[in-house]
């Protein structure tokens, strides 16, 4: 399920991007599957087509989907992470982890937190 909060401060296209990535992580949609067309996805959510378009382009830039003419937005297959993505994720997580340390979290607690998030996503997967 994709869930959007229109009243949130986070822009809708960012929420969409995050929700789609989570849905892929959960295994609700698999590599090789197509995302709905921009028009029908926007219609299903009742949001502007530009919003969906923006989100799809963001996903494409991240290498999560490939926009193929005629077959639409196809979810890419990733056997193992490539170096640039790794470095980018590291860069994104770094301030978050620094904030966690500053907030008083112990090393184990941070490890625990990561594990919890992973198992939450996996749990949803087995529940499907």
């Amino acid at each position, binding site marked *: 399920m994709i869930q959007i909060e229109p009243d949130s401060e986070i822009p809708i296209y960012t929420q969409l991007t995050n929700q789609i990535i989570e849905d892929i992580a959960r295994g609700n949609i698999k590599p090789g599957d197509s995302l709905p067309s921009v028009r029908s*996805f926007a219609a299903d959510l009742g949001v502007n087509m530009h919003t969906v378009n923006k989100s799809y382009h963001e996903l494409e830039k991240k290498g999560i989907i490939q926009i193929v003419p005629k077959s639409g937005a196809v979810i890419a297959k990733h056997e193992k992470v490539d170096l640039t993505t790794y470095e980018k994720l590291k860069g994104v997580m770094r301030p978050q982890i620094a904030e966690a340390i500053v907030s008083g979290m112990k090393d184990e607690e941070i490890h625990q937190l990561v594990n919890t998030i992973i198992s939450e996503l996996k749990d949803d997967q087995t529940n499907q």
Partner: protein
Amino acid sequence: MPVSLVLSIFIILFLTIVQTVIPYLVKRTVVFGVTIPEQYIREQKLNQYRKQYSFITFIVAVLLLIGFVIWALTNQLNEEQIVIVGTFIEFGIIFISLSLYFYYHGKIKQLKQKSKWTEKLKQVKVTDLSVRTQDEMLPWYAYLLPMIITIGLIIYTVMNYNLLPENIPTHWGITGEPDAFTKKTPFSAVQMPGFLLLMQIMFVGIHVATKNSGIKLSATNAHLSKRRQLGMRKYTSWLLFFVVFAMTILFTFFQLTTIHPNVFDGTLLQLIIPFGFLVLILLSTILFAVKVGRSDKEDIVVEGDITDIDEDRYWKGGLWYFNKNDPSIFVEKRFGVGYTLNFANPIGYLIVFLPLAIIILVSFFLN
């Protein structure tokens, strides 16, 4: 009893039933055009309003029907008079139920504001990435079959042009007898199947627009709303196709009867046209409304403090949808079963009104 009376009674009864049961067949989280969060849909007051509406609508409509039948049976009237008064009564019933609708719409809007139902909840929008793959609408090319029949009919008419009478019928009475004619010209000869083809194109347009329109899921009853939305899409496409097919048979019958006056004598078609077609279409509409209307009526437990985004601001009077951001051309009706236009989308006007405008203009100015 004259045919027109039977027909009028049937249509009035149909309207009475439909108008009476509407509050019980609409989408579960909309009451008289007002969005009510799932957590509050079992409020006593809402149920009471529904009952009052149905009770008053039913009683008034039945009284009108009884009065109409007595009037029609005690006076010497011609078919036309009966049809005209019957039509007035049909509009009367719609007017009364619509007035009641607006009355309760206002009351519930006030109640919702006073009780602050939506303010305590987080408003979200949801969808399912795989919902599109579960869509079971007929493919659009199913409509090619009736269209091929129509094109065949046009070709057949052209080939048998000299068999056509000097006066071509343009209108038929309720018994299926032609009652208005126009001079025979190459244009008027194929005018009727031409209109038929135009209407078939319009139906394909409606079908494609419906297919591209949103499948709206509800955050608090994803399962039920999915069943209702997918069911409504599937059965709408069946109903549209059925109507197109019935229309094609009806027009083909009239056209062939014009070319060969006695071709259908003694056949079943001659017996059921056109009254049988009307009955069939009205009955399948009821079947559709009940099937879709009941598909999301089930007791469920709502967890969490979320609710669907309140879209009341896009619904003028709770009946007319204006949402520039939504690319949907059709959206689910708020009072009734089926679809209504997104009036903020100009393509909708094009699909629905253009073919009708062409038909009306051509029949007024070219004849």
